[in-house]
């Protein structure tokens, strides 16, 4: 993946929050070591605090299946992982990890648990963040860098976040300081390159 272009955008805290909202609700790609458990991924690979993961990320889906035991749920290449805080409502409570209401969603619960990690080569997973997790972990992960599709990024720069991105403090394209219009041009002239690494620096 060394030939993938990298864009680093310097944004204010507030605009970073809005960018997180746009990116993580739909999901971004993350380059991770697959074959690891969700717990390993979150705590070791993504360096999220263990207590935060245990207490705060109380609702987790792996490929749309609610997960109870994150230390035994193994991530595979191309998986979709979604993270949420505790949700309201009967169904929201039902979907929580290790909820005593888990029987109410037994038919969709993740059950393919394995006792040991089998960490393999790097792969890409789709990561979605919702609600409080989006607010809290999103900026941290965005500073580490995420992989986004070219077309999504062009759409983001041209439409959804155009005004905000245009007001960015600094933009670097493959390490070279440049302007937003130059980034747009570069993206559109390299459409055969499907993905790009996006990093944020909060200024």
């Amino acid at each position: 993946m060394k030939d993938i272009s990298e864009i680093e955008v310097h944004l204010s805290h507030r605009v970073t929050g809005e960018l997180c909202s746009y990116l993580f609700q739909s999901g971004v790609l993350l380059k991770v070591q697959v074959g690891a458990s969700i717990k390993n991924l979150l705590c070791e690979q993504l360096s999220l605090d263990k207590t935060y993961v245990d207490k705060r990320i109380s609702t987790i889906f792996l490929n749309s299946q609610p997960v109870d035991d994150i230390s035994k749920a193994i991530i595979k290449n191309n998986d979709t992982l979604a993270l949420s805080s505790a949700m309201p409502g009967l169904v929201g409570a039902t979907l929580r990890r290790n909820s005593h209401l888990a029987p109410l969603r037994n038919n969709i619960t993740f059950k393919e648990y394995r006792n040991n990690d089998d960490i393999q080569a790097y792969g890409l997973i789709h990561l979605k963040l919702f609600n409080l997790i989006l607010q809290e972990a999103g900026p941290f992960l965005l500073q580490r860098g995420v992989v986004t599709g070219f077309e999504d990024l062009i759409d983001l720069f041209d439409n959804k976040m155009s005004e905000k991105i245009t007001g960015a403090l600094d933009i670097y394209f493959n390490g070279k300081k440049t302007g937003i219009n130059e980034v747009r041009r570069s993206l559109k002239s390299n459409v055969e390159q499907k993905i790009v690494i996006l990093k944020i620096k909060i200024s």
Partner: protein
Amino acid sequence: MGKILRINMNDLTAKTEDLGEYAGLGGRALTSTIIAKEVPPLCHPLGPNNKVVASPGLLTGTTAASSGRCHFGCKSPLTGGIKEGNSGGVVAQKIAHLGYCAIVLEGLPKDDKLRLVYINKDKVEILPADEFKAMGNYQTVTKLTERYGKVGIISIGPAGEQKLNAASIAVNDMDNRPTRHAGRGGQGAVMGSKGLKAIVVDDTGAAGVEIKDKDEFKKWAKIFSDGLLKHPVTGEGLPTYGTAVLINVINEAGGLPTRNFSSGNFEHATNISGEQLTENCKNRGGKGTHACSPGCVIRCSNVYNDKDGNYLTSGLEYETIWAFGANCNISDLDVIARFDRLCDDIGLDTIETGGTIAVAMEGGLLSFGDWDRAIKLLDEDVRNGTPIGKIIGSGAVVTGRVFGITRVPAVKGQNMPAYDPRAIQGIGVTYATSTMGADHTAGYAIATNIMKVGGYVDPLKPEGQVELSRNLQIATAAIDSYGLCLFTAFPVLDQPETFEAIYRMLNAQYGLNLTGDAVTELGKNVLKTERDFNTRAGFTNKDDRLPEFMYQESLAPHNQVFMVKDEELDEFWNF
């Protein structure tokens, strides 16, 4: 508290009487008990023998946090069974302050005149209100406020006056807007059948609620409030995003009913999510957090402005966003907010109405996603009572019959809310067995295991869904009787002292010695009372079933049909 106010719309009289045999009851327990005892189960819901009961909960009017729910009950014109629905707003506390446990509306008027009732500490007046005919709730509240000042207002819109099955009862909020509704089951139609446009409740100078042991009450009220504020759902998640925070999560679970329950995933869910709603509120000068009633510390409501910063609606909730959003294939929050405003003004249940529009879309009356036509259907047809408007206003089942649609997601005549039971099968048990028809609030998350409310259920037992649903419905019926917001169930679930605070507050208020067991017993009694009414109204176990298509059509992405067996559903009532 201790009085019942009976208003007879036939002879236009009002009388006050002691609680008598209803002593110790409030909220849903009181509305359902009065309906079960006094309304003939086989009567026509819009006829002279039906009644509408409005009742604050047992804790309403005190300083107990989030205890301001106003409960309404009747025989439902939508389901044909007993109905309880509750609402936030300012009126419940005012009723309690005046010393009333319930207001009971009885009889039918001898003419077709419209009337309103004015209640204060000194008098009850039944007054002419023909000038309010066909008036929307917003204008009604504005005009009544000009006349009476800062009061609590219960009102109906044009849908209620037309006696439509989907008609709601509105309550004004703290900003004096008619945005809080007892929506489900067509209770507005029953109020409309009695020729009653509004009830104005003025508690100026009222004595307030008596507390036997004020220090003890204050102590436990603080523990209760602290419990709500420190819990991540009620203290942080709900105030930050409101109930719409569920859109993304339920969609991810594959349980967000889309295009009339034909899929569990809506591809544009992020456009209508709670996260997006919060940003819109923040960027447009609205309010991302807002209390629906005085003393609510959860503050999960909102004020939603349009792109120019002008007020559009308030209390834009998960169910409404789903009903007009994913279910109708509409992905513009501003458009959905307009639907919410219209429903509040016309006096329609957003769940039933959104569900009905989706059925009409499937039936070809309009296309999925055609919001412009859908807006006109409500604003022109339903509001003005055109033939097609009356069909839409009669709910999903009627509309499905008119258009020959088999995929009508209803139980006991009531359209399902925003969780597909093929993805989350346990909610299907509640939809099927609830005395109310398909209802997401009937069985709520309370401490079934932790507090042993209703007995322990083995969480690893896959067939435990019926038992869990039963315990949840029992607990919900109890919570509904105290006037508490159902969202208080979350801290009660996780924090034993918050649960204890509920019956400790009751003990301090009324001089009682209740224990946690009383919660269970009250809930059981309410359910049995409601079940008994429905049985006498002609319901059998065959009505405790989901619609046929849910057993036949699998739902993406999990490709599941509803699998809970009939025999298991029938076990629900074995308690």
